[in-house]
């Protein structure tokens, strides 16, 4: 394996959890709900994933538990913002704080318990293609899942009637409601999808990337996923570019640290966060004020019976 292949492989492992979490949040936001609790759902997925995987000895059970944990937290959030029409920003913050705390409580018995990660799957024939084969087709199942999710979501939002209805709920909930669509139910399903994706992304962290549990191991990835959605202008394909940009910066700073670049390691570690800010500014500048956000994003909707 060449050095370039090795670097690209690590970039993919750093980018995949960001991409999975971002694509889930993207769907929720296209339906008009801003769920700032991605960090909380993600870390609950990481904790539940490794706890179940260690207890049952099955990685698949761990992944399923992670998805369910993310969805459970999303359901709590939905009860607040859809059922009770609370402020979405505040409820999202509460979800992030709650998830960080609960994951610490649940994960406490599993701190430092090592575990074999999930292996890679080689796609027959395709993995023999020089260069591309090694990078794209000798990956763990999560990487394939992330691409399946992007393709599926892009097709769903852009090419299906249900996707159109979901977008209508995000653009103008009152109009969608007047046409007879169940806005709150559609938003609920979108939130569940987002929660499941965040949980899956969390499972990737605790089962593949660093196969053991440490409290607070998401270290802001949930928030970066939120930034990727903005960066992507709420479009699934651009989320891939965003996720790989941020994943690439993370890996770049790790390589620069080990290569002995004469910069304090803390400055390098701050790079992904600074790049996130810079990317947000540049993308807003490029749009020069014209927002591409769903028009109804973050606005509670209360149907008048």
């Amino acid at each position, binding site marked *: 394996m060449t050095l370039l292949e090795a670097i690209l492989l690590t970039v993919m492992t750093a980018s995949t959890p960001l991409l999975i979490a971002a694509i889930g949040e993207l769907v929720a936001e296209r339906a008009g709900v801003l769920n700032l609790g991605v960090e909380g759902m993600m870390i609950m997925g990481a904790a539940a994933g490794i706890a179940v995987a260690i207890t049952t000895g099955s990685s698949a059970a761990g992944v399923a538990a992670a998805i369910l944990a993310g969805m459970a937290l999303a359901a709590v959030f939905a009860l607040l913002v859809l059922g009770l029409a609370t402020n979405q920003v505040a409820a999202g913050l509460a979800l992030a704080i709650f998830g960080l705390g609960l994951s610490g409580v649940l994960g406490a018995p599993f701190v430092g318990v090592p575990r074999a990660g999930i292996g890679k799957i080689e796609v027959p024939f395709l993995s023999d293609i020089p260069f591309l084969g090694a990078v794209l087709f000798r990956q763990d199942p999560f990487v394939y899942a992330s691409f399946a999710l992007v393709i599926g979501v892009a097709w769903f939002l852009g090419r299906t009637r249900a996707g159109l209805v979901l977008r209508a709920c995000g653009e103008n909930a009152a109009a969608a409601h007047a046409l007879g669509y169940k806005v709150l139910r559609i938003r609920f399903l979108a939130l569940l999808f987002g929660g499941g994706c965040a949980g899956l992304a969390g499972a990737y962290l605790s089962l593949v990337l660093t196969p053991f549990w440490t*409290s607070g191991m998401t270290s*802001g990835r949930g928030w970066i996923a939120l930034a990727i959605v903005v960066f992507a202008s709420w479009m699934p394909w651009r989320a891939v570019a965003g996720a790989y940009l941020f994943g690439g910066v993370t890996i770049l700073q790790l390589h620069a640290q080990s290569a002995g670049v004469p910069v304090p390691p803390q*400055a390098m570690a701050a790079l992904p966060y600074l790049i996130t800010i810079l990317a947000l500014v540049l993308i807003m500048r490029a749009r020069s004020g014209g927002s591409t956000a769903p028009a109804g994003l973050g606005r509670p909707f209360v149907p008048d019976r």
Partner: protein
Amino acid sequence: MRLVLEQRPETGFALRLLSPLLAVALALASAAVMFAALGADPLVALHAYFILPLSDSWGLQEVAVKATPLVLISVGLAFCYRAGVWNIGAEGQFLLGAIGGAWLAIATHGAAQGPWLLPAMLIAGAAGGAIFALIPAVLRTRFGASEILTSLMLVYVAELLLDWLVRGPWRDPDGFNMPQTVTFSPAATLPLLAEGGRLNLGTPIALLVVAAAALVAARTLKGFEIRLVGEAPRAAGFAGIDAKRLTWLVFALSGALAGLAGIVEVSGTLRQLQPGLSPGYGFTAIIVAFLGRLNPMGCLVAGVFLAVTFIGGENAQIMLRLPLDATRVFQGLLLFYVLACDTMLLYRVRLLRSAPA
């Protein structure tokens, strides 16, 4: 069966007072269930959490010491949230305040220090927090970048900056290589107010800030403008209020108060910089602000309550071996309940059994 919300024509005063109390009661009940699930006697755990910290002089002083930063930060955040500006990076502004003030203490350490030093440190702390808070404000007004995300990203940057300072240029040369700065000299330390505890001048400063903020919020034109921009931005625009400058103002104000909290914590309580010097005050203060109904006096009461949970969490960890993260779970739950109960102020919540027409 489904939930139906009906708009209330008006909200009574009793309901406004009742809502946060109900939220606290529900959070306590949920905490009891959580403690039982963790294998502790719920009553013993609740006692350790909420009664023990208030039962002796040392505990009461600690509550005041912990409430001080929470109250200072949350009062500032209340102005932001009232104006519909989402500063969630107070944790970073707190750290920059600590760094800004500590810089003076460290630069003058071992040299001529006078009575001017403490006021200068407080001002430098507030300035550090305010300048750091203006970054997301300007990125918001100039480029339209979401202040939620940028202010949060800057928290991580601030943590790394602090980490670098105490391990690198500001490390105590006689500190056995520990990541910490020199211990501040008495001239750079806020005086203690009582024997046998850590209660210091920071607490009266926080009380003064609450009084001033209550006055500004209720009795001045600026306080009214802040509410107006938050509740009716279009009307505010017609009234000629510059929303851009107001965004800067509330960000700078909340950053200054968070920075003041940071330097008060460092100069009054810790007396040196060290990594992890905040147990998440900046995030807990968000909960304080909402529990206090975005009202300075309310923030005072809510800040004391959440300070109790910090000390109670430590008690429960030592006495009952409950994980420290249980405190965070409680705080998150509390914010859920506060938001849910606030819905009652605007709407009548009804459960309908029949299918919708």
